[in-house]
């Protein structure tokens, strides 16, 4: 292979979304509307966020934000549950709403000819929900079944165990979908009160991509939302910082009958707004993503044959989300896998990545952009991302130059700041026990 001739790809940034082909308007009520036309496909995708999430719930009511988000589609002043889904499913459309820690997300898709109906439905469920008691009880039972399945899942339990250790006294330490007892305790009054207090158009982002004209979309959205004047009762909550544990922390969750254990290792990482976020993401690609799971994959999967998957992620949301490694391994191999991952983290923070690794990973980030931004889903997600994190409409056009400018020293600085091989949180779930026989 001609290694010596390899160079960063030259991307025609004009094919990427930018300020000259993203329509952006803000309604007087603070709702942000983004549209990008794409007549290559016959569909339209609608995606966005509202500034309400699990942060707005007290710890004894965890799961409330999610139940409210799911309950929006259980009936409105204009349509019953059955009528809402008859309207959606009859035209082959999709619409879903869910809550996470910081925000409530929605995404809908339809043939472009059905755009008006999709916008009308979205406005109806966001603005006029009635949370019918019978429907909400069915929903609660479904949610509780989901929690039971979650609590029997090794991956979910390892993540929960990790979160508790990595984020003591921090909202990220608890699952945003709640616990059985918190969900069982929620009353209809809690549900209706939460909606009334926190659902509002201020800061809401609605991105639309597809075979539709931007001005027509804006007119539809404006008609459906501009007279929504609800206000949040209190300011949007910002989460506090989080730092690596003082020493190695480990929690093992015993789940009988499981052939494979899952483990999560890591520490709080950079927020999206952190200047070290982008070096951390590029470095993380080297650590646990590039090729088949990067250096971690080489050590744990390729060399030791311990796991089907072993990879790392940097969350980088509105707060200090985790920088973590996840792996699924045989219970007998858990401790060995942890050692190998610690070894790779130690190497990652002690020496700069090589020039070859840096070049290849930059090329990966720049070269894959046309692929990531090919679909309506990719573009809509990108537009919501740049709006939510205030990155500017030309972010993706400036992205190749920004990535090209990251140095090995930048990556090392990010690694040293957030990762310490002896100050990690480790969550394990499965048959494994830490010290067999003890």
């Amino acid at each position, binding site marked *: *292979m001609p290694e010596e001739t*390899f160079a960063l*790809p030259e991307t*025609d940034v004009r*094919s990427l979304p930018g300020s000259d082909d993203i329509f952006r308007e803000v309604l007087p009520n603070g709702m942000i509307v983004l549209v990008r036309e794409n007549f290559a*496909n*016959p*569909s339209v995708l609608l995606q966005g966020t509202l500034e309400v999430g699990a942060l707005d719930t007290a710890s004894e009511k965890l799961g409330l934000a999610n139940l409210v988000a799911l309950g929006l589609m259980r009936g409105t002043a204009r349509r019953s549950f*059955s009528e809402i*889904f*008859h309207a*959606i*499913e*009859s035209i*082959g459309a*999709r619409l*879903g709403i869910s809550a996470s820690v910081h925000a409530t997300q929605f995404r809908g*898709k*339809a*043939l472009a000819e059905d755009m008006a109906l999709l916008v009308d439905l979205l406005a109806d469920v966001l603005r006029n929900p009635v949370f019918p008691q019978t429907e909400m009880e*069915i929903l609660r*039972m*479904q949610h*509780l*079944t*989901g929690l*039971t*399945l979650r609590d*029997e*899942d090794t991956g979910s339990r390892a993540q929960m165990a990790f979160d508790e250790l990595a984020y003591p006294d921090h909202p990220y330490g608890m699952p945003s979908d709640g616990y059985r007892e918190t969900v069982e305790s929620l009353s209809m009054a809690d549900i209706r009160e939460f909606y009334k207090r926190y659902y509002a158009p201020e800061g809401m982002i609605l991105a639309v991509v597809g075979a539709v004209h931007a001005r027509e979309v804006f007119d539809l959205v404006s008609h459906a939302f501009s007279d929504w004047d609800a206000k949040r009762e209190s300011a949007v909550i910002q989460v506090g910082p989080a730092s690596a544990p003082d020493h190695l922390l480990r929690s093992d969750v015993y789940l*009988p*009958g*499981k*052939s*494979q254990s899952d483990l999560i290792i890591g520490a709080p990482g950079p927020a999206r707004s952190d200047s070290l976020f982008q070096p951390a993401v590029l470095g993380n690609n080297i650590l646990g993503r*590039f*090729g*088949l799971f990067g250096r971690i994959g*080489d050590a744990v999967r*390729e*060399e030791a*044959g*311990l*796991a*089907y*998957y072993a990879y790392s992620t940097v969350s980088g949301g509105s707060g200090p989300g985790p920088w973590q490694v996840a792996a*699924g391994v*045989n219970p007998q191999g858990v401790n060995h896998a942890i050692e190998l991952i610690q070894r790779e983290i130690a190497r990652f923070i002690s020496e700069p990545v090589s020039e070859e690794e840096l070049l*290849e990973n930059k*090329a*990966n*980030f*720049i*070269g*894959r952009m*046309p*692929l990531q*931004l*090919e*679909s309506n889903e990719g573009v809509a997600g990108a537009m919501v991302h740049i709006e939510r994190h205030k990155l500017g409409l030309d972010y993706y056009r400036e992205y190749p130059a920004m990535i090209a400018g990251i140095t090995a020293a930048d990556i090392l600085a990010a690694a040293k700041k957030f990762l310490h091989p002896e100050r990690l949180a480790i969550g394990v779930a499965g048959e494994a026990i830490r010290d067999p026989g003890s």
Partner: protein
Amino acid sequence: MTDAGRAVFKTRLSNGLEIRLQEVHTAPVISNWIWYRVGSRNEKPGTTGVSHWVEHMQFKGTPTFPAGKLDRVISRDGGYWNAFTWLDWTAYFETMPADRIQLAFDLESDRMQNSQFDPDEIASERTVIISERQGHENDPDFRLSEEVQAAAFRVHSYHHEVIGDMADLETMSRDDLYGHYRRHYVPANAVIAIAGDFVIDELLVRVEETFGGIPAGEPPSLLVRKEPLQQGERRVTVEGPEETELLSLAYHAPHARSGDFLPLAVLDSVLAGASSLNFFSGGLSNKTSRLYRALVDGEQAASVQGSLAATIDPYLYEIHATIRPDRAPEDVLLVLDGEIDRVLQEPISKDELERAIKQASALFAYSSETITNQAFWMGYTEMFANFEWFESYMDQLRAVTSEDVLHAARTYLLPSNRVVGMYRKSRGSSHA
């Protein structure tokens, strides 16, 4: 069906390799898929899972692209790639920036012939694949599905999971793996489907240059053992420590080329909601489907889904329900059977038929949107039928009548034609 102006060019190289090309100029991207007519259908006891393991070994290197290099060269060019093994086929794809696609051709033509199957790599991959299977085993859905599938197929090789039985994963040899690779990875047993930002005449030259010199090989022979008609309902129970109980019904179903296949797909849409035949495209919500109303609104189950797969030989139509904690699988089966009786007694309504077709039409459009998906469809349909099946799919679907659906229901949704599977929480000592 393809969009106007997106005609598919079809040819066959002299070595038997089938070629499908489609120009799509919506993004500077090309997607290259290579499909081999080999999957778990081609396996025998003793080497179950061999097709999937061979797929893994195809990422372990050739003399030109040694292990560890393949991933790097694709990734650094901004591409993504993956591979899949299923009942009837094994597929590999690379979606790349258009100016880098030659790398995908070089790589695929090389590993069609020169994969090394190094014994050390096989030893390492054995534990990786066992780990993959153990990950599946963590899930009661998998444990139940495996038993239901085995109960449904006593004779036909569809009886085992694609991942293979643990006994075979522990004992399979390099000779087993390498022999399977050499027999099935030949041009005469493969289809290449490429869609994206290229000019057909120019790309065809490059494809011929890259793949045309590979010796044809022989299309592998396969003794298909036909599954005899099932003589009565079969029941299986799986127990384990997990709390949430499950119910699965699996009816023997027609193969994809059968005239009953699309009527049964419409019936699935009415019963359990519309789903896409494209594995990677997802379906719609199913809250207005008959089974959701009866089981979920009826406070019996937390969720219900249906699935019908397009296969070479007759496979299964499956209905799967997750039981509410305050109900038992038997309760849910009673209600479910009431709904099955309805579709056996009377035709679906005109409105239901029209909705099912509109839903299928939308899903078909969604599942063809990206260049990767367009290349997928061209090769995928060749694995169980041919591209004409894909081109005529919507017309055939629109021609389905309520009577066709009733006929399909009365042919397939019979108790004697099904396996009933239940997953229950074990009472007593923990699951071994």
